[in-house]
């Protein structure tokens, strides 16, 4: 098994095919979308492929050390063009192919008009902490 990170972006990723802001959907479309995501996570949990997930607030700030005795420098909230991570899900699956397949399913969550949003998700493999002991 190998762990992968599925990264969802608020902004900064290529635009989704069905790219309509969520507050412009109908309430039923919002509900359907949330239910799809929820069901997806529950199914992965049942299958033993779910590790964890978290949603992040869109408010973010860059912070940097600014020298001895000075408060850290901050930059933010983000300008519109900056990349913004919306949240992530971690999965533990048998193969890269399986990870791609699941990311594809998640990207098919229904959006405006009830059609899949075709959202771009970033898929990142975890680096292992130790070498595999089985050969």
């Amino acid at each position, binding site marked *: 098994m190998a762990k992968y990170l599925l990264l969802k972006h608020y902004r900064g990723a290529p635009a989704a095919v069905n790219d309509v*802001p*969520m*507050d*412009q*959907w*109908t*309430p039923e*479309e*919002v*509900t359907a979308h*949330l*239910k799809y995501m*929820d069901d997806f996570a529950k199914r992965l949990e049942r299958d033993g492929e779910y590790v964890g997930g978290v*949603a992040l*607030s*869109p*408010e973010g700030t860059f912070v940097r050390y600014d020298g001895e005795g000075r408060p850290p420098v901050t930059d933010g909230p983000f300008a519109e063009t900056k990349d913004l991570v919306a949240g992530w899900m971690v999965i533990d699956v048998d193969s890269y192919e399986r990870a791609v397949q699941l990311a594809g399913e998640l990207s098919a969550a229904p959006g405006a008009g009830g059609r899949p949003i075709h959202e771009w998700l970033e898929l990142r493999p975890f680096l292992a902490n130790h070498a595999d002991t089985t050969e």
Partner: protein
Amino acid sequence: MNDSLLRELVPAVIAVLVRRGADFATAEDAVQEALIEAVRAWPRHPPREPKAWLVTVAWRKFLDAARADAARRRREERVDDEPAPEPGAAGDDTLQLYFLCAHPSLSPASAVALTLRAVGGLTTRQIAQAYLVPEATMAQRISRAKRTVSRVRFDQPGDLGTVLRVLYLVFNEGYSGDVDLAAEAIRLTRQLAARTTHEEVAGLLALMLLHHARRPARTGADGQLIPLAEQDRGRWDTRLIAEGIDVLQAALARDRLGEYQAQAAIAALHADAPTAADTDWVQIVEWYDELVALTGSPIVRLNRAVAVGEADGPQAGLAALAELDEALPRYSAAAAYLHERAGEPAAAARCYAEAARAASTVPERDHLTRQAARLNTQLRS
């Protein structure tokens, strides 16, 4: 075996050990070990006097730990010779334990963790799960907290206000994981209320009971938020509401108002209304005025503005809101609600979308996004 009985006994047992001269950190560890023994031994050998059993075993564990150079001994714990319960033990000792675990030298997160462990008798694993942090992290947090308060003299009077804040923090954490922290906070506050007659302890207990009574109606089948006005009041727990109101009235009758009593009074007015439309908003605004006088809190002023909107109309609410800082948490959500009531759906939709971006929980964000979506859908048609 009765898990909650076991946990009830924890603070008293720690208190006995400390009174006998054990330092707090070691006493607390010893009691946790005794609890593990109890879980193993009690199903086969139920003790006649559970507390005396725990004191005996915990004291032995403490002595074992104190004799650090003694070889580690493996032995079966079979306590056939139970001593009689200690005479004159020790309600006030337990009260001291609350003060110690909420000591002002601790950060709120540490105080919460230590209270749940030492007063509440939860295991480190349970506390870690409830706060969604790794067990090792929580273990460190607790042992650092224990080291900090080990230097505190056990006989100093404590700060009740800090204790109440810690208990309210636990309550508000709600229910993630296996442990229902809201129920746990109520249990601990009940214990505290049995040991002190302070009005604000009663006020906090009433507040918790009244909030807790409405919990089953607060979320829908998919976990979505249901606002107060739309809740199915038939699902409110009337027994808890009645108890909360009794506790509150007894406290208010003593005429020493504090912020928890005032908050509980507002919760009681909501709980008492047969329908949302019957809510006595005029009286609620009066209680918010009391709360503003007691606390000066900008969050209270924000809530007051929403209540004013109900009592005197949305324009009055928006006027009250205009005096406040827009950066306050939930400012946009309050503005959205009042704009919609004032017949300004476009402004309301904008505020709801903004509030969703600023939301601090997933259910809240989803709820606010739906509100924005609902208004925008109406505006298009």
